[in-house]
């Protein structure tokens, strides 16, 4: 018959072996019940202590306490181990495929013409220009007459006009404005210099549409009137705006052009950013792209609104927003803007 101490040692050996093979937390709990529980194997063995002599009882008792403590420690260690494994397993199971798409949200956008128009207005606002608007249905007077384009003037051919079916004294005085220039006169009639305005809006022309022509246009009119404004200010201002819109490295060029309501008149060109001046399809092989028309306000217009043309001079300019948007985004067909196809609009 083995001694109690031997039995304890054997039990310890057995318990450790069993602990090593415990695979999960549930099995660990039943191991503890089996070996260390109130009715467990260790208690069963230590019950025999009572029958031992006091000296031996003290020795074996100390041994039993050590076995209990060590097995408890081993249990704790094993438990931490198993918990970590379980966590790792759980995490492994729950790992996301991070490449899956996020849940879709709706994204709204502004029309590319609105976006470009705002950028243009911002460029002028930075130079102190205020935004002023006018009507889209306009009188012949403001659209033509006041801009020195009387009836039967050949320059009227430059703006094919849509007329409103309204007659007064045998004439049709009402039209869809063909440009934003009427706002020059409208504004000057009500204000005194210094004047510094930009006037955006839709304009309409009697025009067949093709990749470079659209009958509805968005224009911005620019007007500055003050003492001492010259073509040098016109050049400086428009060159600055061109660089703000198209990049600081842009080169700007000016050339003579005719508009009935300015004198002298000029067109502003920037060097082609597609080909950097080499010549390509965008710039029609010239290396330069026309971006706006401008000139010094005709002294007769100033006189007609009651300004002294000897004292005040001014410049005016007009930009086509669609054209600028086409250049910025590389759009080759102006008709895309107002066809409103989402496959187009969603690109901006």
């Amino acid at each position, binding site marked *: 018959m083995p001694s109690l101490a031997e039995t304890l040692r054997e039990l310890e050996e057995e318990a450790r072996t069993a602990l090593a093979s415990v695979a999960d937390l549930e099995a660990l709990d039943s191991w503890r019940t089996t070996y260390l529980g109130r009715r467990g194997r260790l208690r069963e063995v230590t019950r025999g202590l009572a029958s031992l002599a006091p000296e031996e009882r003290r020795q074996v008792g100390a041994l039993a306490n050590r076995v209990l403590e060590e097995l408890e420690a081993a249990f704790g260690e094993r438990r931490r181990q198993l918990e970590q494994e379980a966590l790792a397993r759980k995490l492994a199971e729950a790992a996301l495929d991070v490449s899956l798409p996020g849940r879709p949200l709706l994204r709204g956008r502004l029309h590319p013409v609105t976006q470009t128009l705002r950028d243009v207005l911002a460029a002028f606002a930075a130079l102190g220009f205020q935004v002023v608007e006018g009507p889209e249905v*306009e009188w012949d007077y403001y659209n033509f007459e006041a801009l020195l384009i009387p009836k039967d003037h050949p320059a009227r051919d430059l703006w094919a006009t849509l007329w409103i079916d309204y007659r007064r004294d045998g004439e049709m005085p009402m039209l869809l404005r063909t440009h934003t220039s009427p706002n020059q006169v409208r504004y000057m009639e009500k204000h005194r210099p210094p004047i510094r305005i930009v006037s955006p809006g839709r304009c309409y022309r009697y025009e067949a549409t093709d990749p470079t022509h659209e009958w509805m246009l968005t224009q911005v009119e620019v007007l500055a009137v003050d003492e001492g404004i*010259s073509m040098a*200010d016109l050049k*400086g201002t428009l060159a*600055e705006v061109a660089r703000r819109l198209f990049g600081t490295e842009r080169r700007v060029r000016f050339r003579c052009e005719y508009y009935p309501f300015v004198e002298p008149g000029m067109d502003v060109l920037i060097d082609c950013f597609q080909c950097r001046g080499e010549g390509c399809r965008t710039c029609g092989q010239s290396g330069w792209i026309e971006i706006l028309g401008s000139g010094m306000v005709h*002294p007769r217009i100033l006189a007609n609104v009651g300004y002294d043309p000897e004292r005040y001079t001014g410049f005016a300019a007009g930009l086509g927003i669609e054209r600028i948007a086409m250049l910025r985004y590389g759009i080759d067909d102006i008709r895309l803007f107002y066809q409103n196809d989402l496959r187009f609009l969603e690109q901006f």
Partner: protein
Amino acid sequence: MRVPLSWLSEYVDITIQPEELAQRLTDAGLEVADIVRTGDWQNVFVGQVVELRPHPNADRLTLATVDVGGERQTVVCGAPNVAVGQKVAFAREGAVLVDPRTRQPAPLRRAVIRGVESAGMICSELELGLSDDHTGIMVLPEDAPVGVPLSSYLGETVLELEIRPNRPDALSVLGIAREVAALTGVQVREPPSEYEEHGPPVRSLASVVVEAPDLCPRYVAAVVQGVRIGPSPSWMQRRLEAAGLRPINNVVDITNYVMLEMGQPLHAFDWEKLARRRVVVRRAREGETLVLLDGTEARLQPDMLVIADAERPVALAGVMGGANSEVSESTTTVLLESANFLGPSIRRTAQALKVRTEASLRFEKGLSPYLPLYAARRAVRLMVELCGGTAARGLVDVFPARERQASIYLTQERLRRVLGMDVSREEVEQTLAALGFRCRWRRPATYVVTPPYWRTDVRIPDDVAEEVARVVGYERIPAVLRAPSLPPAEADPMRELRERVRDALAQAGMQEVITYPLSDRETLARVLSTEELASHPPLRVANPMSRELEYLRTTLRAGLLRSLVRNLRSRPGLVALFEVGRVFLPRTDDLPHEVEMAAGIVAGPKPDRWGLPRAEPADFFDAKAFLETALAILGVQAEFLPARHAVFLPGSTAEVQVEGKAVGLLGQLHPAVAQAFEVEGDAFLFELDLERLSPHVPAGRRYRPISRFPPVREDLAVVVDADVPAAAVRKLIEASPLVARAELFDLYTGPPVPEGKKSLAFAVTYQALDRTPSDEEVARERRRIVARLERELGASLRG
């Protein structure tokens, strides 16, 4: 205006390459839109057929011996029109010609045809790329110089100029030559116009009466007798063709030639067809008609200027001649008209009759009254020289209101103020002189300038400043960016609101569109109620481009619907579009009232988890969500009340109210309207009148304090009649001073809720700024709310 360089160089030495010339002209305001080169052939020469022999082995072929300038070559030729003595285009081996079969350019190779070697080829127009004609060889004019390269004889570089309406003087080769001379520092050679007058005095042959001097400031007439009508010389024909005009006969060609050369339209009458040899310049009489040269019959109006003889109109002044006085093969005496007509009158007539000619396009721009005399002399000289005519002695010249040209006073100071730089006196004088201006210096610092007679566009000092600037070059002017003096800022609240609404709708998730404001009346009528259509009948365009673009919109609905349909068809998925733009409401004898509107349209299947259009289709509340979000971004609290409108489905229509005022509509599109626009499925539309909304949009945000004390949250469920709006219940709960919010979280009908009733459950948050509400306080407030709900909405507490 097409200007062949060979013609241009007759009046001015061209010292720079065509590309640079084009650039210089364009920068100076005469836009060269294109440089067209024709006839850049290599290894093709002018030859003359000197002998023809039959081909020994083929009946249809001949052996042609061609003199190519001292050297003779024999070629095999199959053309039916080849004949001895002809001048032809002879191509040597290596010439690149158009292959008649493939129509592609291909190099010519040495060939043996039916056993005979051919040393080259006599070319057809097609092979030279001049036309599609391949019926025979091209026969050159008799005076073609044998042996010279064809490119130097027929080749041409043509500048295509787009002349602006202020420069009718530049609608002429001489006018362009003057510009070239000024820009490149060379002299102009005027074309010769002297001739000998061997005929009787012109006054014995014709009389001219100008009855309408207000429309005809000057009328010059010449008579040339004994002309022989025939083709004009080939050099003239070639120039006319290169400039885009068709040769007709020598007399007519001379009038066209001088028009292109000097810019003055001319007309030649058959003198014998003019009754009593009289020319009367007068307004047309009521009911008069005239058959024009193009065969059309013009019904003349009393404000139209005509040229008449003693009996009837014989020409539409400044526009087109009449068939009754046309120069024909039997003509022997010509009356030449070189006149000045008033631009606006010519333009009105040409537009009214829809006949715009080279002549009318020049007259309408305002030609110089000094030009007719020069042009008449030049044309008579050519008729004497080229038609064998005898010029009558003198010219008839009716020029009643001859005025001295006014001088323009340009001060140095003004020049500097306009250009923003100084130009030296010497340079100004030199520049103006080069352009043909006379310029005197008057102390202390004024240029007294007289423009040349052809420059009718230069009238004021700033015009002269432009002349100086464009010749010295705009590049010389410095670019100056100065701090401006700023006018006081003015607010534009409607514009600001409009842009905020744009942003708000885009932020809510909708895509902006911009649609045309014109459509047809039926389309507009479909999206307007009878009352809307009657109170604001859309304005009509008098000259619409098409029936679809005839009426000015009074609503944004139609444009949005069209965009919706296009997109539902082109791509699957939810379509949520908005537009912010103006509608045009007519007013009596005034411009229409332009109202800023915003409108949105929503339809199509919503995206599922994967973004694919497979979830349920959008409904009323999806559309409402866009609108509510946008309004919330604007800081506007709106109410939605049941409404009726012909375009919307009854029961699914709401009026949008803010502070008790109607500002818009929201609803499901009526199926009948949806069908008319071919919308598949349900569509939902909303619109806001920004003018009505404007007074209710807070200008800015006001901070509301946040309570530091915890809230008490409770659910409150009530049963009300089915037609009581949930918003009314909520509004009443939130009216309690202790309630921070009440949020609807359940809507239930069916047992045990009685028939005709519904249950609404709200999550109510009680909160005070200065304390934590006690349980008793909350209970007391709840009882008060329930009592009010019972009293005002007939509600009962549920559960």
